[in-house]
Every structure is written in structure tokens, then in C-alpha cells.
């Protein structure tokens, strides 16, 4: 298994940047997810790692070995395609054996390794079928088998679950995660589904507009988003972001008496970061606020959605400033009633509206 290192890797199509220069190191055995909306450059990045796409500039290393200009076949990486890309005229067994045959392995080795993979994925029953006869999930299992049989340095997966039905997707997600735990193979996984990314990734690389927005664990990108894009993109609904103004330890949020005294440890960083303009964006996750009778903030119930285990309240603080707050599933709030709520002081985040970046607590100490 291998470490993958990207140094200032960049891709341009004409004048258009598909990927702006980025640095990224994927450690040995790590499961890294490239997450972002479509067109953000995540798939292009993956294809550059595989060699299916050439880089415009920058360098790619596989275990200290410079592979920037090598063909895909010279890199020893496996790639799982979104649309499976199985060979339609070959049976499942032949599909899985293909990479070994291409390497000129002996018949015994091929049989042995194919059987190994078939056992692992439990696809014996499919061996003599052709790909067109299989369900999407089985096709993706075969594609995984074809990747696994190689014992490559790294696995690259391009939205492998994107073409599957929703109920299939979750079980396949578990299978891939399980495979990774068993094999401990360096894996780069591309998806636009943030739930998938959070569930699977050791680390998540959030991309947008051809740039990396943030690299971090699920918890980091969820609770400590680096900027407004990440705060909004991760989570459903995303983080509540309320444009407010700050002065003297008090945040004036929209709505009549919505004055929020900032937690003590935030005073210094906020004062430093905002200088004198005072404009700030307050961010908090729906589950980090609580409806309480004597809460500091107030708004009117706009809608209540029951999510099963909990209710999601949309609370209107002022004309356009609606925040989502998670509430108990049993409590009913008639629409239009005033509610008061508090934000968990540990979980409140602040963003600079000018740079859209987060304001860090630790920056000044």
C-alpha cells in the first residue's frame, strides 16, 4: 500500500481551471473522500491521480515514486468507475481475471486469486453471467472484484455508488467500508453525497470551484467548517448562518431584542478579527440550539417538520432570517407562536462576512 502525494497539481481545460493548484497527501491505508458539488474538480483530481487525465502542471508521487507523467498502467492503482465499466463481452469470471491475464499471470495464480476475491465479495453465483444480466449492485461488486484482484497500491473510486438505487447504496456503502477495514488499502473516494462522505471517510477533502475548501475528519468539517461554503454544504439542513453585527461582547442578531452575549473566550478573537466594522456571521448547527422558555433569542415558528426521531423547527428571527433548530419529536409548536432558544456556547461559530472564512478561537491566546 502506498502514500499518494499531490504537489501543486493543476488542471486547465483551455482557460478554464478544472482544478486549481492543490496540495494533498493521502497517507498509507487511509480512506480519503473527495467531496463537493458536481463540477468542483473532484473527479478530475481523481483521474489525474490515476493517470487517465494528464496534469497541466504539478507533480504526483506514489510512495516517493514520481508518477506524474506515467501511463495509468505504470502506476499500479485500481480505479472503480461510476458506471462500472465492465467488459460487456466477457463473463464475470473473465472480467475479474482480466487484469491478471493482462499481466500474463499463470493459470493457477489467476484461478487462485480470482477465487479469493470471489469468496471475499460472495459473488460465486454470478461467475458465469455477463455484466448486462446483473443488477447495478452486483455489477459494482464485480467492478470491485476486478480492482481487488490486482492487489494494487491504491484504490481510486469515482462515485461507485452513484448509479445504484437508494436502498442498495447503503448496504454497498457498508460493504466498501468493511473491505477497507479488512484490506486496509489506501483509498481515494469521490462523492457528492455528504452523508456518504461523513460515514466513510477517515478524512474528507471538501472541494468547490476547483479548489480545496477544507481537509479534515468528519467531525472537523461538520463542527468546525473552514468557511461558509463548507458550513452550508455539509449537513442537511446545513449550518445556520445568521448575518449579525458585533460590538462590545454583544452580537445583535436580526429581530427586535435578539442580543446574544458572546461566550467569554470568543471576545478577544472576535474583537481582533472584526476590528471595528462589526459585521459578523453567526453559525450554529440545528442540534446545537435548544428551545427553552427563557432563551436569550426569540423568533416565530415558521414550519415544523417531523423527522421521526426529532422535529426540525424553522424559526423566523426576522423577515428573511430563518434558522433551523432541532426539537423534541413530541412537542408541538403551532405555526406562528413565539419561541425562545439558546445556542450551546461551545458550539457557536463565527465567520467573517468579508472573507467568508471562519474566525478561529485559538488564533489569539
Amino acid at each position, binding site marked *: 500500500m502506498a502514500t499518494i502525494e499531490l504537489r501543486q497539481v493543476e488542471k486547465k481545460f483551455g482557460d478554464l481551471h478544472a482544478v486549481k493548484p492543490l496540495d494533498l497527501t493521502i497517507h498509507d491505508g487511509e480512506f480519503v473522500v473527495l467531496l463537493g458539488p458536481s463540477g468542483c474538480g473532484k473527479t478530475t483530481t481523481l483521474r489525474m491521480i*490515476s*493517470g*487517465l487525465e494528464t496534469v497541466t502542471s504539478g507533480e504526483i508521487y506514489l510512495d516517493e515514486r514520481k508518477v506524474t507523467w506515467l*501511463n*495509468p*498502467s505504470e502506476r*499500479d*492503482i*485500481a*480505479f472503480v*468507475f461510476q*458506471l462500472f*465499466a*465492465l*467488459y*460487456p*463481452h*466477457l463473463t464475470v469470471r473473465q472480467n475479474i481475471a*482480466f*487484469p491478471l*491475464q*493482462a*499481466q500474463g499471470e499463470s493459470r493457477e495464480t489467476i484461478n487462485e486469486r480470482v477465487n479469493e476475491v470471489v469468496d471475499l465479495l460472495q459473488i460465486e453465483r454470478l461467475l458465469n453471467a*455477463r455484466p*448486462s444480466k446483473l443488477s447495478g449492485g452486483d455489477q459494482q461488486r464485480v467492478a470491485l472484484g*476486478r480492482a481487488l484482484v*490486482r492487489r494494487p497500491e491504491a484504490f481510486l473510486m469515482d462515485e461507485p455508488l452513484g448509479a445504484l438505487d437508494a436502498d442498495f447504496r447503503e448496504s454497498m456503502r457498508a460493504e466498501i467500508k468493511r473491505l477497507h477495514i479488512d484490506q486496509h488499502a489506501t483509498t481515494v473516494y469521490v462523492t457528492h453525497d455528504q452523508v456518504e462522505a461523513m460515514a466513510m471517510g477517515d478524512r474528507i477533502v471538501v472541494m468547490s470551484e476547483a479548489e480545496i475548501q477544507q481537509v479534515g475528519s468528519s467531525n472537523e468539517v461538520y463542527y468546525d467548517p473552514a468557511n461558509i461554503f463548507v458550513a452550508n454544504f455539509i449537513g442537511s439542513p446545513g449550518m445556520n448562518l445568521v448575518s449579525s453585527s458585533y460590538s462590545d461582547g454583544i452580537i445583535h442578531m436580526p429581530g427586535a431584542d435578539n442580543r446574544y452575549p458572546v461566550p467569554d473566550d470568543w471576545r478577544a478573537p472576535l474583537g481582533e478579527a472584526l476590528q471595528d466594522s462589526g459585521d459578523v456571521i453567526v453559525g450554529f448547527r440545528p442540534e446545537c440550539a435548544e428551545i427553552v422558555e427563557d432563551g436569550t433569542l426569540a423568533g416565530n415558528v415558521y414550519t415544523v417538520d417531523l423527522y421521526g426521531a426529532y422535529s426540525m423547527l424553522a424559526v423566523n428571527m426576522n423577515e428573511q432570517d430563518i434558522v433551523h433548530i432541532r426539537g423534541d419529536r413530541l412537542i408541538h409548536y403551532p405555526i406562528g407562536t413565539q419561541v425562545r432558544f439558546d445556542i450551546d456556547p461551545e458550539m457557536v461559530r463565527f465567520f467573517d462576512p468579508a472573507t467568508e472564512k471562519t474566525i478561529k478561537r485559538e488564533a489569539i491566546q
Partner: protein
Amino acid sequence: MSINEAQVSTVDQEMKKQPRRRQLSDRSIVNLFIWPALLLLIAMNVFPLFYSLYLGFTDYSAIARQQPVWVGFQNFSRILNDEQLWKYFATTGRFALLSVGLQTLVGFGLAMLVNEKFKGSGLLTTLILIPMMISPVVVGLFWKLMYNPTFGFFNYLIGFTNPSTAPDWLASRFAGTPVPGMALWAVVIVDVWMWSPFVMLLVLSGLKAIPDYLYEAAAIDRASAWFQFWRITLPQVTPLLLIAVLFRTIEAFKAFDLIMGMTGGGPGDQTELISVNLYRQAFLGQWRTGRASALAYIILIIIIAISNLYIRYLNQMKGES
């Protein structure tokens, strides 16, 4: 625009409602369209087909003042026992094998070539297709000129500059050295020149239909270019290639106009294909119409048999994938 049309159509309908005008039912309109075509087809195709089958069982000459005389299977048994005719069948088989084989190779090669994106590949494709569009008789006559050892340039192109030592492909007797068996090759070369583009066209459409991701997957799977060709390109193109081969085999068994224009079956009987001989029997010398009809049916049965083999194989392949 659409309002105008609507008005016109209502006007039409009103006119049809007028009792003076005779109204055609859908049924009679259908008949009006179908019957002329059907009658023409019966007169030009179906009737000759069955009439020639009948003539195959008779002793008859179209120029003799004599009604056909029923002779049963005599024509067929004589043909099947005629060693000379078997030789012509063999020549036809050799011609078909050589020309279809070479066309497949050359056509596939050309398709692989023009499938690559390079400057002028579109123009090149068009140029390659030109031979296919020329009338076979014209092609035959032109190549006859080009093969001529004194004023043809074919020998010059393949490296012979002295007409007296150069091969005399079609035994023109102008100059050069006649080589036995050369004439069949000469005809094969022209047929390949003319019809390889057809194979190319079909193979090219097959190549274009192979999705890129298969080659991407193969590149990831570390398959060499050679391995990719054998394990992906060829199997993917095979169905279309077989169709091309089927068409060309049928055509090769029927080959007539090109050979007639070039050699007329000669020199000697070196290029006497069965269809050329059929023509000779039917319309030259004694005009043995009855015997020629029987021969035509034997050729038809052979072609149907060969085509069936191909089609069966093709269906088998389709069933697998």
C-alpha cells in the same frame, strides 16, 4: 401558420363531404399504393424466379424455335457430374476466399487507421471510399489498362521498369512474361482495392461504437495495446465484421461485372468464375437456357447455405453477449 393549415384541412374535409366528389376509403387508398408495386415485383422478380426454376427442369434454348421440353433432373445431374463446372466452382471459391480474406484484413487496417484522430482523417476516409462508388465494369476496364505491361503503370509501381521482364498479369500478349495463375490474383487485387472500403466502413462504425471507458478500464488494468486489441477491440467489432464478411462472401460468389470487364474469364479459363460461366452458357453460343437456369439455382442454394452458416454463427454470438 398552424391556424392556416387547420383551416385548409377543414376546407378539405368539407369538400370531401360533397356528394359529387367520389370518396376513397382507407382500404382503397392502401390498395392503390400497394398493387402497382406488387404487380411490378411479381412481373420482374417473382415470375422470373419461378419460371427459371421451371426452365431448370427443361431442355430449352431461348433462341430456338421450340417449346421447353420437360426433362426432370437431367440438367442438375449433368451439371453436378460436369468436372469442368466443378473446376469453375473451385475457382470461384478460391476467388471468394482470397478476396474476402484480404478485404477483411485491409479493411480492418484502414478502419483502425482512420479511426485515429489526425489532420485530414475525414478527407482520407472519403477518398478511400471512392473505389466503391465507381461502376465495376469501368473499374475492370481501367485496371485492365493499368495491368498492361507496356503502357500500364501497375508494374512500374511495384518495381518493374522493363516491360519485357515484367509480369504480364492478364496475359495481354503486348509484352512481359505471363505467369500461370497470375490472372486470378490480378482480379483479386482489384476486388480488394474496390471493396476493402466497404469492410472499412462497417468496421469503423463498430470501432466508433466502442465506449472509451472500456479502454480506460483496460489501461487501469494494465493491459498492453496488443492485449487491448485482442480482448476488447476485436470482440467488440466482430459482429459488424462478420456482417461485412457475409455481404462480401455473397458478392464474391456472384462476382460478374468486374471480371467480365477485366478478363471475360480468361486468359484461358483462369478467371472463369461460375457466374461468368453461367452467363456464357445462357447468353453466348448455344444459349442453353434450361441448363443455365439449373446452374443458377445451384449457385443460389450454395449462397443461401453459406449465408445461413454465417447468420447462425452471428446469432450464436449475439445470444452470448
